[in-house]
C-alpha cells in the first residue's frame, strides 16, 4: 500500500491524516521499515516459516523479486530490488540439500517466439506432477527469467515433460536427465549452452562520477533576500555557508584563501554552528534547500553553497567541498535552457522519453514561505517579484491567503 499520493482527502475538522503521515515520512521518519523478508518452505503442500535459516531475511525495503538460475548450477538464485541502498541485491542459492534441478528454455514457432503462456508439466517416477508457466511480469513490478526451473529432489530421470504451447498444441518429451535445455516448438531438446558474449564492452567513455551538487532545472528568483555587492555586478554570486567544527568547511576555506574561485564572486558566511545568530535566516536557508525536493527538513550538510546568477536567481546547490572545475563549468553553462538544461540538472547522463519537463510555478516558493509562517519575508518576496508572480492565475488567491494569515496573527 503506497500511501504517498494516495489521493485521500481531508478528514473531519479539516485534518488530513494521510497527508500528515506522508509529511512524517518526507521529514525522514520510518514507516514499517527494517522488516525482515519472510520465506515459507513448502513441505508437501503445507507451509512453514523458515526465514531465519535462509539468509534471505534481510531488513532491506524490498520491492521486486526476480528468479533465475544465474550460475546455471541447477538451482534458483534471486535478485531483489530495494528502496534503500544497495538498490539491488543478489542472493546465491547454496541450499544444503543435494537435490538437483532442470532448466528449460522454450521458444515458440507457431506461437509467440518467447512462448509466453506455455505450460510445462513435468513428471518423475511415482510422484505428483509439477507445473510451470512461461510468464512475463509477476509479483510486484518484476520479471523473472523466462527459463523455467524445476526442482527434482533426488530424482535423476524425468519420465515425461509435457509442453502445452500457447496455440494449444501439446508436445511430449520422455526420459530426460537433469540439466539445462533449450526446446524449440516441435523439436527435441538440445543442451542449452552459453555463448561468448560479443557485445563490445570496454570502459564507458563517460566517467560517471557523482558530484554532490544539483544544477537546477528551474531558476528561483532570490533578489528579495540576498543583496549583491557592487563588485559582484557582472558575475554570478556564490554564497557559501560554513560552520566551525566541520573539517570540509575548513579545507574549503583554506583552499579558497590560496586560490579564490574564478568566475564567481564568493560570499562566505562563517557561523559557529548551523544554529545561525539569525534563526529566521536559517529557516529561510532550510526552505530554499528544501524547496526543490520531495523530502524536507533533512539536516543541511556543511558547507552548503548556492550559485546565484546575475539576475539574482538561484541556479545550483552544492553540498560539501566544491570542485573548482565543476563550478567553472556551471558558470559557463549558467544560461543554458531547454534540453541542455534538463540534461545538466540530473546527476547521470541518459535519454528522456518525455519531451519536456513539467513547468514550475514561481508562486510555489511563496506558498512555502507562508506555510513556514514567514509572512514578512513572503510580503517582501511578492513585492520584489510582483511582475512574474501576477501572471499566475492563482496570484489573487495567494494574496488573500497572505492577508488572512496576517489578520490571524493580529488577533491574539
Amino acid at each position: 500500500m503506497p500511501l504517498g499520493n494516495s489521493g485521500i482527502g481531508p478528514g473531519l475538522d479539516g485534518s488530513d491524516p494521510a497527508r500528515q503521515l506522508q509529511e512524517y515520512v518526507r521529514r525522514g521518519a520510518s514507516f514499517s521499515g527494517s522488516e525482515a523478508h519472510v520465506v515459507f518452505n513448502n513441505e508437501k503442500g503445507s507451509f512453514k516459516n523458515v526465514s531465519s535459516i535462509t539468509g534471505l531475511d534481510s531488513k532491506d525495503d524490498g520491492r521486486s523479486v526476480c528468479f533465475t538460475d544465474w550460475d546455471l548450477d541447477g538451482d534458483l538464485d534471486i535478485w531483489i530490488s530495494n528502496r534503500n541502498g544497495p538498490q539491488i541485491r543478489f542472493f546465491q542459492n547454496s541450499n544444503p540439500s543435494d537435490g538437483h534441478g532442470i532448466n528449460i528454455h522454450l521458444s515458440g514457432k507457431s506461437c509467440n517466439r518467447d512462448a509466453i503462456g506455455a505450460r510445462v508439466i513435468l513428471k518423475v517416477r511415482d510422484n505428483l506432477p509439477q507445473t510451470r508457466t512461461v510468464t512475463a511480469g509477476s509479483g510486484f513490478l518484476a520479471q523473472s527469467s523466462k527459463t523455467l526451473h524445476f526442482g527434482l529432489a533426488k530424482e535423476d530421470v524425468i519420465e515425461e515433460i509435457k509442453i502445452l504451447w500457447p496455440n494449444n498444441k501439446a508436445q511430449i518429451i520422455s526420459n530426460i536427465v537433469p540439466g539445462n535445455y533449450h526446446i524449440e516448438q516441435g523439436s527435441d531438446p538440445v543442451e542449452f549452452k552459453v555463448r561468448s558474449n560479443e557485445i563490445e564492452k570496454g570502459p564507458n567513455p563517460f566517467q560517471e562520477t557523482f558530484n554532490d551538487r544539483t544544477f537546477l532545472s528551474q531558476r528561483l528568483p532570490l533578489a528579495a533576500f540576498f543583496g549583491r555587492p557592487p563588485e559582484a555586478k557582472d558575475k554570478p554570486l556564490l554564497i557559501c555557508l560554513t560552520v566551525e567544527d566541520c573539517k570540509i568547511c575548513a579545507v574549503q576555506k583554506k583552499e579558497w584563501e590560496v586560490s579564490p574561485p574564478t568566475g564567481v564572486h564568493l560570499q562566505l558566511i562563517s557561523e559557529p554552528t548551523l544554529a545561525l545568530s539569525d534563526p529566521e535566516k536559517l529557516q529561510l536557508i532550510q526552505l530554499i534547500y528544501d524547496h526543490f525536493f520531495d523530502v524536507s527538513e533533512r539536516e543541511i550538510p556543511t558547507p552548503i553553497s548556492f550559485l546565484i546568477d546575475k539576475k539574482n536567481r538561484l541556479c545550483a546547490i552544492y553540498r560539501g567541498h566544491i570542485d573548482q572545475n565543476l563550478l567553472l563549468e556551471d558558470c559557463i553553462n549558467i544560461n543554458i535552457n531547454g534540453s541542455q538544461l534538463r540534461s545538466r540538472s540530473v546527476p547521470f547522463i541518459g535519454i528522456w522519453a518525455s519531451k519536456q519537463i513539467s513547468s514550475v510555478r514561481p508562486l510555489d516558493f511563496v506558498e512555502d514561505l507562508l506555510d513556514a509562517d514567514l509572512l514578512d519575508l513572503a510580503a517582501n518576496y511578492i513585492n520584489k517579484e510582483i511582475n512574474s508572480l501576477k501572471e499566475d492565475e492563482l496570484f489573487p488567491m495567494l494574496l488573500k491567503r497572505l492577508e488572512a494569515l496576517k489578520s490571524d496573527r493580529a488577533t491574539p
Partner: protein
Amino acid sequence: MCFQLPVLLLAALFFFSACNKKQGTDFDSHESKVTTVQCTTPTIKESEQLAAQIESELILFAQQIISGALPDSLSDNKEWSQFSNRFINSSEQSRNVKASVFEIRHEGNIVQTVARIEMKARLKNQNYFGLITQLKSSWSKNEDEQLKVLEIGDPEQTVLNESPVLWFSDETDRLTAKEPTFTEHLSRGLDFWLKRIESIHGIDAFINNGMALGDFDGDGRDDIYVCQPGGLPNRLFLHQADNTILEAPKKTGANYLDHTSSALFIDIDNDGDQDLTLATPAGIVLLENDEHQSFIERGILQTDEVDCHSLSATDFDMDGNLDLLITFALGSRSLDDDSSFRFDDARDGGSNQLFRGDGEWSFSEVTALCGLSEANDRHSLAASWHDYDLDGDPDLYIANDYGQNQLYRNDARDGSRFFSEIANEIGIEDRGAGMSVSWADYNRDGLPDLYVGNMYSNAGKRITGLSEFMPKNKELTKHYRRFAKGNTLFKQEKNGGFIDSGSATTMGRWAWSSVFADLNNDGWEDLIVANGYISGPRPDDL
C-alpha cells in the same frame, strides 16, 4: 454514515501507533499540531501506548530466553526452559530477537495480549537456529500506569528451524565489484537521491521502481535491467562469463531517465532477440533489440494516466503477437467530494489499459473493446496472466490497493473477445491492500493456485480487534480487520472455486513481491515475501 470515517480509521490504524513509539524529540512540535486527531478516540491511543510498553517488556523477556537466563517465575516451565537451553552457548553477536503484540484486550486494570516472538542465533555447533512462537500474556497496571506482568503463557504454534548452512548467501558485493556505476549510483538508496534530484523530474518519497531479467545480448545468460525514478537513469547490466555484472555501454540506448515503474524483456517482433518495454508516465516505451548491440526506440504507446505500476505481457488472443497490459494506481479523475475516499473500497484509481499487439510494432488499445473498462477504476499495483481454468487461454488477475481484486476470465478459446470479471464468483476478490500476484500449483494437484501480497500490520490487527474500534459498524470493522491481515494463499478446488488456505502464510509483514519459487529443489514451490515499507534516515518508526 459519515464517509469521513475511513480517514479517521486510517489515522487509527497507523497514526496512533505512530505517535506512541516516537523515540526522538524532533517531532514534538508536529505532534502538538495533530492532537485534534488523537483525542477523538483516546482509548485507542492509551491501548497503543500499553502495547508499546508490553512489547518492550517482551523484548526483555525474549532476550532473557535467548541468553539462557530464564526468569525465576518460569524456571519450572518445561517448554520455555527447553527453548532457552537450545540457545546455550550460542554466539552472542548472532542473537536476534523481535517481539510483536498483535492482539490486545482490556478488562479494567488487566491487559491481555497475544504476541509473536522471533529469535535466532548461531548455535554452539555452528548451526543456524531460528524460533518463532506465540504467547499470551497478562498484565496489570497500577494508578501510575506502571505495568506488572501477571502471567506469561506457554509458547504456542512454535516453529523451529535449524540448518548447518544458510540457504542463500548475499553475493552482491562480489557481483558488482567491477562496475563503478554501481558504487556511484545504485549503492545509494532512494533517500539519498530524494535530496539531490528535483521532484519535478519525477521522483518522490513513495515511488516504486521494478526490475526485469532477460537475455539482451543473446549469450544465453539473463541480464538485468534496473528501473529508476525520474532523473536517474535505468541501468542495463550485462551478465559476464564469470557471473559478475557490467553495465552495457552508453550507446546501447537503455539509460532512460523518466520514472520507470517496471520493464519487460520480450520478443515483440518475434525475431529471436529480446526487445525491451518500459512503463513510464510518458507511456509504454517500445525498444527494439538491434543485433544484440543496442536498442532502437520504436515508439511510445500513449496511456491515459501517469501513475503507472505493473507491466505484463501475454498473447491473450493467441494470434502470435504479444499484448501488453499496464496498470495504474492513482487516477487523474477526481471524486466529486474528495472527502468520500473509501479506504476499503476506493474507486478513484487510474484505468488499466490493454494494448493488443498487431505485429510490425503496431499496437491497438483494446481495453474497452475487450470488456476491460467495466469497474476499471481501482488502484492497481500488480497484475499477472495465467490460464487458471486450464481452458487454453490466459486469464488476468489484478491486485488492487484499497479494495477488492479482480479476475478477468478470458474466453478467447471459445471465440469470445470479451473478458468476464468473476473474482467474487470464484472467491478470490481478496479485499485488502493488494500489492503482488503470483500463480503456481503449490500442492501439485494440477490446478493453479494463487498467492496475493497484502499489507500485514501488527498495529492494524491490535486496533481493529478492540471493542472500542467502530462499535457501530461491524461490517466495516470486518473489512478493516481484513486490511491488516496480510497475504492470502488461495487454493483452487476441483469445482473451479478458490478457498483461502489459512493463516500459515499470511504474516509477510508490509509485503511487496510475494512469490512462489522452488528455493530448495525439492519439487515443491516455496514462497518468498520481500517486505518493508520505508526505513527513513530517522530511527523512529510509524
